Each structure stands twice: as structure tokens, then as C-alpha cells.
């Protein structure tokens, strides 16, 4: 039998607000345990939540970016369950009236095919704290720093069918939330966490199979692997005559498998009801328009602008636009009058390779955009050859500043004294009569030999175009 998998993702996006969603405590990552939890986050007797308007603004921004309906009135509900890292015994979330309604996300698969996935809804909620199992011997410790961090839970329709598609969707969402500045996108810090709902059914069946939910996946690679594993597991179960049990599973990245966490057959009763401590949130057109006016350029619009205004080829424009910080860096270079195509090439080739090798992001690049822009300008005006440019780049990477100063110090300026160069060319031709004869006999390849000799004599500073012209002259 042939099987078709169906995948839906629920992605928790940590919003990059300064303070928590219902309290004034800071949200910064990595503080010592329980130092960023105020009485409200601790759920002390008598405390009350007050909604952070910035979180609302970010949710609306997301809604606009996916072309969704922004609900005029949204309601916060209590989701009741007991857990040590859930201080109040309930999580404030949104059930029936989420802030963001139906929208869609467009993205490309690795093979270049375009896909559109429907986003059912996105709602605001508070994060829980963390249970730490290895901090205190024989006990579980609770760190409530994260408690109350604003989350936007983005729920997709079950419209994806392959692990690669699921991973591409997650990546596209990651790019989008960073581009619109609502999430720092630090996956290793848990800034985006994904739950995957997976089911399989015989190909062509019009009903979906029973689904399982894989919890808390936090990288693109793991989404792909966890979903792949789960699809294969379900097919195995079904093909050996078994039945899929509705349950929550956990992906173990070390063993590359999913494991059952708890059966969901009796479906948890969270006793949702509207939180009486919070009034319904009314969002009017003026608020939405203000958010819209404030909206950063979306990656798709940016890519189009890079292509039409700056003349970048589509693949280069896309590669830059999909990473907001890289695109910002690129635009800082073009603002400093670097040639766009050269700038893009440098960024996506030399710079990207070095960043990759040193495991750095563009934000941590030791080379300032202004310096790299100047390097590109010196290439354009033929002061540098591509070879000497790399030398300058090495110096910049090592911490030197000022492209012109480096060129000066290192004596890398391309020879533009054509008499001197002509003399060197004449010398080299005279010193290698056999090769000169071969060239004249029609063996064009020998030209490379002469260029190499001349470059060696000039330590790479000769202008290759000029060398070419002078050589052909001298070899006539």
C-alpha cells in the first residue's frame, strides 16, 4: 500500500518585547535562575496581569505580514493544569477569539518549487517557566525567568506532506518573524519551538489517519528528522496491522527517534474560560494602520527591490533578502556606494564562507559594512585586483581598519604605470623566447604562462587587463 503523510505545525514564537506579556519583568535570556521573575510572574497571592501593548503590536504585525484578518476583539482565556513551572496553575492563552485569524505563508522548497501554506490562526499566550532536572540532586528545580515571556502560537493547517516541506515552512516562518522584528530567532535559546502533528493515511484516502503530536522541536533539521522518523514509524505500525494511538511524543535528537510522552486518548480537559482579570482586547482600525505604517519591508518585497532597483540576479537577491540582518548589511554597503552586484557576491561568497568557518553570524562579523564597501569600491576602480582584494579582506578580518590605509601599508596598489609595466612585459617576453615562439605559432594557452610570470614579478599588483593588452602587443 502507498501512504501519504499529513503534517501541521504549531510554532511558538517568542516575541522580542522588553518586558513580559503580563508584567514589567525583563525578558532577557540567560539571567541567573529566578532573578527575572516579579510577584506577577511568581503567581503570588493578589497579583494581577496587565497586558503588554508591545506584544499586541507584534502580533498584529505578524498578522499583517501573512495577510490575515486581525480580530477586532480578542479574548484571553485561562488554560488550567497543574505543573511546577506553571506558577498560577493556569496559563493565560487565547482559545476561541485569537488575535490573528486565517492567513498564509509562501515559501520555496529546496528544489525551488513554490508552496503556500494556510495559517489557521495565531494567538498570544504566556510562556511557562522551566523545570530543571539536573541542578539539584534528587530534586527538580524550577526557574521562572521564562514564565510570562510573550509567545505567539502560530498554527498551520495540516497541509504539508513531506518532512522537507515541514522544515521549509518552519524556516520560512523563522525568516519572516526575524524580518519583521518580532522575534530574535535564536533557536538554540528556544526562541522558536515547534510542535508537529503528523498522521498517515493510504494515498488517495479522503480522511486523515489518527495523529500524534511531537513536542518541542527547536531546529529546522530536527523538524525534518522528527517528522520523517514519525511518518516511518506510523507506516510501520500500520503495515504490521497496528493502530496509531493519539498521543504526545517527544523527539530525541541523540537517538533520532520519537518516544511516547503521554496518551491523549482521554483528551486533557483544560477547563478553558475567559480570564476575568483581563478585559477583552479591542483593536481598532487606527491601531492596525499605525502598525502597518511601522512595518518593516517583507523579505519578498525586499528581494523584488534588490532585483529591479539594484540589478541583482534573482538567486542573489533572494539569498540576501531572506536573512534580514544580511540584507541590512548589504544595504549598508550599497549606501556606502559599493557596486551592488560585487557587494552581493562578496557577501554571499567570501564573507559567508569566513563566517561559516568561524561559526559567526553576520552581526558578529569582524569586518564593518563600511570597510567591505570600500574594498568593493577599490575593486571597481581597479585599485585592487581580486587577488589583492583578498589580502585586504584578510587584514580586515584580522581586525585592521581602513581599506586605503591597508592598501598603502601593504603596497597592494595595482600598477597603473604602463611604461613600467610595459618594460616588465618586454623583459619577460625577451627572457622566454621559446614560449613566445609557441604563442606566435598559435598556441594561445601560453599566454597564461606569461601572465603568471608577470604577476609574479609584480607581486600581483599588475592590472590583469592591462597585462593582457601589453602582452598581446609585445608578442605580435
Amino acid at each position, binding site marked *: 500500500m502507498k501512504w501519504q503523510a499529513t503534517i501541521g505545525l504549531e510554532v511558538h514564537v517568542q516575541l522580542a518585547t522588553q518586558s513580559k506579556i503580563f508584567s514589567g519583568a525583563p525578558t532577557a535570556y540567560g539571567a541567573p535562575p529566578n532573578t527575572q521573575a516579579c510577584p506577577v510572574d511568581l503567581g*503570588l497571592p493578589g497579583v494581577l496581569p496587565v497586558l503588554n501593548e508591545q506584544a499586541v503590536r507584534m502580533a498584529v504585525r505578524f498578522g499583517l505580514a501573512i495577510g490575515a484578518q486581525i480580530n477586532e476583539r480578542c479574548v484571553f482565556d485561562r488554560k488550567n493544569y497543574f505543573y511546577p513551572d506553571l506558577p498560577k496553575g493556569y496559563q493565560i492563552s487565547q482559545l476561541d477569539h485569537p488575535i490573528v485569524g486565517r492567513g498564509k505563508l509562501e515559501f520555496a522548497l529546496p528544489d525551488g518549487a513554490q508552496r503556500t501554506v494556510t495559517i489557521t490562526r495565531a494567538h498570544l499566550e504566556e510562556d511557562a517557566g522551566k523545570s530543571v532536572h539536573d541542578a539539584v540532586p534528587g530534586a527538580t528545580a524550577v526557574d521562572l525567568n521564562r514564565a510570562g515571556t510573550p509567545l505567539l502560537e502560530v498554527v498551520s493547517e495540516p497541509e504539508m506532506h513531506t518532512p522537507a516541506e515541514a522544515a521549509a515552512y518552519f524556516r520560512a516562518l523563522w525568516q519572516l518573524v526575524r524580518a519583521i522584528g518580532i522575534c530574535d530567532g535564536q533557536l538554540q535559546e528556544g526562541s522558536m519551538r515547534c510542535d508537529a502533528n503528523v498522521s498517515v493515511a493510504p494515498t488517495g484516502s479522503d480522511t486523515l489517519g489518527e495523529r500524534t503530536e511531537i513536542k518541542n522541536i527547536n531546529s529546522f533539521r530536527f523538524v525534518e528528522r522528527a517528522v520523517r522518523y514519525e511518518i516511518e514509524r506510523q507506516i510501520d505500525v500500520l503495515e504490521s496491522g497496528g493502530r496509531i494511538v493519539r498521543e504526545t511524543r517527544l523527539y530525541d535528537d541523540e537517538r533520532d527517534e520519537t518516544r511516547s510522552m503521554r496518551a491523549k486518548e482521554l483528551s486533557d480537559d483544560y477547563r478553558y*474560560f475567559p480570564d476575568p482579570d483581563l478585559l477583552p482586547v479591542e483593536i481598532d482600525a487606527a491601531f492596525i494602520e499605525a502598525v502597518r505604517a511601522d512595518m518593516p519591508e517583507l523579505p519578498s518585497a525586499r528581494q523584488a527591490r534588490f532585483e529591479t532597483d539594484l540589478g541583482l540576479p534573482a538567486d542573489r537577491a533572494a539569498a540576501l533578502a531572506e536573512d534580514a540582518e544580511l540584507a541590512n548589511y548589504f544595504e549598508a554597503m550599497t549606501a556606502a556606494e559599493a557596486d551592488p552586484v560585487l557587494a552581493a557576491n562578496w557577501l554571499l561568497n567570501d564573507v559567508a564562507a569566513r563566517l561559516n568557518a568561524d561559526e559567526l553570524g553576520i552581526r558578529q562579523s569582524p569586518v564593518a559594512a563600511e570597510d567591505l564597501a570600500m574594498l568593493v569600491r577599490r575593486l571597481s576602480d581597479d585599485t585592487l585586483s581580486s587577488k589583492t582584494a583578498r589580502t585586504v579582506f584578510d587584514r580586515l578580518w584580522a581586525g585592521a581598519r581602513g581599506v586605503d590605509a591597508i592598501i598603502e601599508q601593504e603596497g597592494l596598489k595595482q600598477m597603473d604605470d604602463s611604461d613600467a609595466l610595459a618594460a616588465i612585459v618586454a623583459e619577460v617576453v625577451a627572457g622566454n623566447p621559446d614560449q613566445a615562439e609557441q604563442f606566435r605559432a598559435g598556441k594561445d594557452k601560453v599566454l597564461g604562462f606569461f601572465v603568471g610570470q608577470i604577476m609574479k614579478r609584480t607581486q600581483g599588483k599588475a592590472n590583469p587587463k592591462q597585462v593582457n593588452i601589453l602582452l598581446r602587443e609585445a608578442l605580435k
Partner: protein
Amino acid sequence: MSVRDISQALAAGSYSSVEITRRYLQTAESRNDAINGYISITPEVALAQAEAADARRGRGEATPLTGVPMAHKDIFCTRGVRTTCGSRMLANFVSPYDATVVEQLAHAGAVMLGKTNMDEFAMGSSNENSSFGAVSNPWDTGRVPGGSSGGSAAVVAAGMAPFATGTDTGGSIRQPAAFCGVSGLKPTYGRVSRYGMIAFASSLDQGGPMARTVADLALPFAYMAGFDARDSTSAQRSEPWLEAMRQGEVPQQSNGLRIGLPAEYMAKAGDSGAALEAAIKALEALGHSIRPVHLPHTEAAVPAYYVVAGAEASTNLSRYDGVRFGHRAEHPTDLTDLYERSRTEGFGAEVKRRILTGTYVLSVGYYDAYYRQAQKVRRLIQQDFLQAFTDVDVLLTPTTPNVAFAKAALTQDPVAMYAQDVFTTPASLAGLPALSLPCGFLDGLPLGMQLIAPHFEEQRLLALGAQYQEATDWHTRTPEFAP
């Protein structure tokens, strides 16, 4: 002594805040064995605040409340002084922050004598549900003072504090005020910040003042009221009369008001019937007109109230799990055991009953039949009132169906106990301001009447109540208290 007398005497320099505070501390200490109105008496805090108040007066920076002693219901969080909410669960809980009400009264210079007894988590109508022992009614120590603000009502009635704060969810200020022969105001929902007031039922809870007379409610009310950015349900309003009240003004009633008598309430007036007739005559004599009105959904108020309040309470009390604060079971074997035993040991029977019923009404399959239905009833009751207020300015009703009952009389019958709230829950569900004030006696026990006004019209209630008290003397009677 009245709040106004003390305020004036302090202003005139007849005595200092330290002196009057000492006198109240003495009375409180000596009578508390018999009344049990205080869970904590805090002489050190009181005297320090009194000294500060005297110094402030010396600098010419006193408000009319500066140096006036008072008591807080033990539901208001007080930094450094334990806040028990009447529960074993919080027997040792010391809040790291002050409730907004506590902060505002302290800021005005009021002096806290202690924290008053209450039904556990404000759940009860007799104060017998306190983990710190029942409170006795100063008029007859064999009887209950009402609840849940029974401690506040009793200490005011017994002269152990000039005024006290209370909270009212379904009648918890008004019913004990009636039983103890004092005046109590439940303000409009949203008028007084709930921040730091331990939650029972968030959509109903409202803090308010309790004092001997209506005139004495105005000053503390004005300092308790006001917008608080820390409470999302707090109302953002600016009313000049509130500011005038903070300066010591008592609102005056001159115009003839249209006073509505809801037929559904009067039919069940019981013990209060005769006293209400007399009150009606007194009000008419003051130039007000009386007319009958109908509030047809009144009967559904008590059940709707117990569904809504139970639902909210069941989740408000989830935070008491033994993990971070409050009672924690010893030697838990695992997480479930920690939860179960901490809550079993920490909560009393009535609290457990309400958590269970509240959990039930929110459960899948029952939500629509109970919680959603109760919300519908709530809207109908609100509409009843809005309709009535198109015809009348204020409503007059009994506060309770009977005088204070004997201790243990209703403890075995929760439904009969809940029926005590028949006249007070409707205004709670509608979020309306309501005042209870003494209107007579039956067999030596006080009776109370209730005035209900449209949203945010506390001024009207206080003005009318004060005017009534100028014409009557029920409020001047004090229990022949034998310690």
C-alpha cells in the same frame, strides 16, 4: 468614636495619633479573646505608623485620614505582616508587596492596627470558615457576625477599630455590616483596585470600607478608590466629588430621589419587613418618593452567583500547590502527592467544596449547562437593574433575610447558608455599588437595609445614607459589650 471625630481631634491637637492608636490597641487586645475579630494585631507597625503620622502632621502635611487607626481584612497583602486570607494554606505567608488599597491608605497616613479575621479565602457567610477560629458577633457572642468580612464588621462594632477594610464578592461587606449593626459599602466593580487583594472570584471581588456610620465611610472610600494601572479591570475615571471626599467632605443629599422597592426582594424581607416599612416612612419624610419596581430574574441570582464565583475560585486557587509559597505537605513521595496533600491539608471544607463545584461547572460537557448559562443569567440580571434605573435613582432592599443566626446553625446545610446571599448577590453580579446600613433591631439584634445605585454612583448612596442617619439613630447604638 467616629472616624470624623478622631480626624477632627487629631487636627485640633486634642490628642496625638500615638495616643489614640494606643487606646485602640488596648481595646483590640482586651476584647479579641471574646470576639476573635483580629487574626493579627500589629502594635509595632501601628505605633511606628502613628509616630510617622504625628510627625507628618507636625510638618503640616496631614490628610484628614493621617493618624486615624484602622484595620485591614486579612485578604489584603501587607508587606512584612503576614497575610493569611483566613486559611491554614497561608498561615505563614508574608507578602513581599503591599496591596494597592493598603498602599493608598498608608499613603494617606492611616494607621494599621492589625489584620481582621475572615472566612477562608472569603468563602462564607458566617465567618465560621476561618482557619483561625470563628468570630463572635459583639451583639451576642453566641451568634455569627456574618461573613466573609465578619472580623472587620465585628471589630468596628466592638470599638476595636474606627473603620476597617472589607471585600465583597456576593455580600461579604454588606451582610456582616447588617449582622453587626455597622455601615458597609461595596463600591462599583472596578472602582477599587484589586491588586494585592487575594482573589476569590475576580469578576465579582471588590474592596470597600466598613465603619459605624455612612459619613465615616466616605473618607476611607475616597482613599481606597481610584484607577490602578496594575489592575486591568480598574476603571479610569476622574470624579471631582472623590477628591472633595478625600478632603473630608461628606456628600449632601438635597433633591428628592426616586427610590425603587423591588417587589421580588420585599416579598422575602422576613425579619427586616417592619424595619424597612419604618425606613421607607423616614425616607419619604425626607422628601424622597418611593415606587415599586421589578427585577424579575432575582431568583436566579444565587445559583448563578455560586456557579460564576465557584468557577473563578477553582482556578484562582490553583496557585496554592505547595511549590512556591504557602502550606507544603511534609515528605512528599512525588509531585502528585505534594499537590494532593498540600491542598488537602491547607484548605478547609468550604473552600474544597467550592473548588470542586467550580471545577465541575467548567468541565467539558458541563460548561454550557452551568458556566455559560450562569453568564447568561448574569446579563439578564444586569439588564433588570439597567431597566429599573430608567425609572428610579436608587433601590432600597433588605440586606439579609434574617438577623444574625446562632453559631453552628447553618454549618451543616450549605444551601441554606448560600441562601443568606439572596439580596446581596444580584448587585454583585451586576457590578453595582451597594450600601448596607442599620435600619432597626429585632430582639436586640441589628437589622440592615441595602441601597443600590447605578454604576459609579457611590456618591448618591453615601449622600442618601448619611442623610438617613441624620434623621435616625440606629447607627448610634452600640452593643453592650461585656468582655
